[in-house]
């Protein structure tokens, strides 16, 4: 009996509620007052639409991020064009420079006497940095302009394989690049502090544009100091943004990745242009210059013309050494 009466009470309660319900919903429809996309977009501005997800990946909670599309335009078009302009522009400038100025000769001719300019450690650091940079620059450039240059020439399969290997090379060679970057910083920073000598060098354009002009310079002239600081600061920026791109989970969200990628691409384009000029002047652009990094020993006359003060320093040290010490220094 008690069970029956309880059931009866429960049933009558449900009946009463269900009769009352239509009256209540006629006044307020709670489902009608919902969040709408238009209103959300207006309220959020450019901020993403977010919500709760049941999977562990917190980034999946971003429902719509309209701002991501602006990076697509920046990366797909602006950086693409800028990279091409930086590289081809510098090559065009150097070609023009070569046509007007020609190869910069050792004006007093080769003396035949050699001076050690860069020792084995310096050359090792330089060439490690140089080879890794060239491979990093080429594989990086492939990611920006490969699809419009290499893809039409070699087809999708070959381009895909090349880019896969390129990415692996880029990821791994970044580490020796960073080691070599620290090495050149430690080896050469003392020679690259700007001073008064640099002002005169810059005033005379380094003697680059006229024959017979050789402003004095120590081991590194103002132009080389510019290269040094570009490589050190640019390399540091590339290393930092590169590490962030290698470890995306640590770097943050898509907005951070977009920022790092943009900086990475911009610095890479600028530094590539500077390094192309550096390669030119260190090889075909100037007679006798390559020896400095090739064998490490430069001709005395070349050194006197381009690094007059450095030659004086080296020779006075040598003279002091031979005067004071009876046995050879090395």
């Amino acid at each position, binding site marked *: 009996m008690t069970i029956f009466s309880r059931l009866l009470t429960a049933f009558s309660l449900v009946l009463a509620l269900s009769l009352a319900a239509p009256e209540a919903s006629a006044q307020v429809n709670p489902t*009608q007052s919902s969040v709408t996309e238009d209103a959300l977009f207006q309220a959020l501005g450019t901020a993403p639409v977010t919500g709760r*997800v049941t*999977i562990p990946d917190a980034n999946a909670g971003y*429902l719509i991020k309209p701002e991501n599309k602006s*990076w*697509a335009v920046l990366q797909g*078009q602006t950086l693409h064009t800028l990279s091409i302009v930086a590289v081809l522009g510098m090559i065009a400038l150097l070609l023009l420079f070569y046509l007007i100025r020609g190869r910069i000769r050792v004006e007093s001719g080769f003396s035949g006497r050699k001076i050690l300019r860069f020792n084995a450690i310096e050359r090792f650091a330089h060439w490690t940095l140089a080879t890794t940079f060239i491979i990093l620059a080429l594989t990086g450039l492939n990611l920006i302009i490969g699809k419009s240059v290499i893809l039409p020439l070699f087809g999708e399969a070959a381009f895909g394989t090349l*880019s896969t290997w390129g990415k692996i090379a880029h990821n791994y060679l970044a580490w020796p690049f960073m080691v070599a970057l620290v090495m050149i910083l430690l080896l050469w920073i003392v020679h690259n502090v700007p001073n008064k000598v640099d002002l005169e060098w810059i005033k005379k354009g380094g003697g680059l544009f006229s024959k017979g002009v050789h402003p004095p310079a120590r081991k590194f002239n103002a132009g080389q100091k510019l290269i040094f600081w570009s490589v050190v600061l640019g390399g540091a920026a590339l290393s930092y943004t590169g590490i962030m791109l290698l470890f*995306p989970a640590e770097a943050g969200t898509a907005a951070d990745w977009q920022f790092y990628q943009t900086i990475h691409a911009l610095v890479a384009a600028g530094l590539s242009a500077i390094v192309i000029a550096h390669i030119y002047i260190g090889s075909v652009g100037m007679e006798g210059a390559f020896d400095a990094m090739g064998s490490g020993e430069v001709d005395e006359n070349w050194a006197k013309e381009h690094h007059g003060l450095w030659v004086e320093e080296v020779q006075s040290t040598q003279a002091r050494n031979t005067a004071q010490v009876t046995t050879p220094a090395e």
Partner: protein
Amino acid sequence: MARMKFLCDADRCIECQACVTACKNEHEVPWGINRRRVVTINDGLPGERSVSMACMHCTDAPCAAVCPVACFYTTDDGVVLHNKDTCIGCGYCSYACPFGAPQYPQTANFGTRGKMDKCTYCSGGPEPDMSQAEYVKYGANRLAEGKLPLCAEMCSTKALLAGDGDIIADIYRERVVTRGYGSGAWGWRTAYGETVTV
């Protein structure tokens, strides 16, 4: 040719996650990869809505614009697909995607990116239709069988609609008119530059 689109009627979605499960099962999607997900906005608050989201197969897809190896292509049906043989797993598409669609298996050194995986609108990839190679890389190709994506086909409340953009927009418009309200065609303005106006 039809222009295929997804439309999630958030006023009908009950966050049952069946679309997510159906997708994972149909394509044998690896663990940790979510081609489709359900996001709940205003969770626990008045006006809460859930939206099932996957690749929206954008017009002028931003992923395709940023891909360094140009592995994306748009089919005649307006579906954005990609070639996993060409993909290098750089992650740029995931930076550019407004919907968080690109997914990566954890196979690569440094970071967590193997070859990108995303919703194919149940239409496979560049391999021959319904081949084993296509199934292994991209999953089932229902479109080639004359069927629509499984997530939408088996949605219990018919919240998730798939099909020709004009037709599903008409269905949604009719629903909004009939019931008197609608929270909008989520993602359409971002993906296609225009939303469904009622």
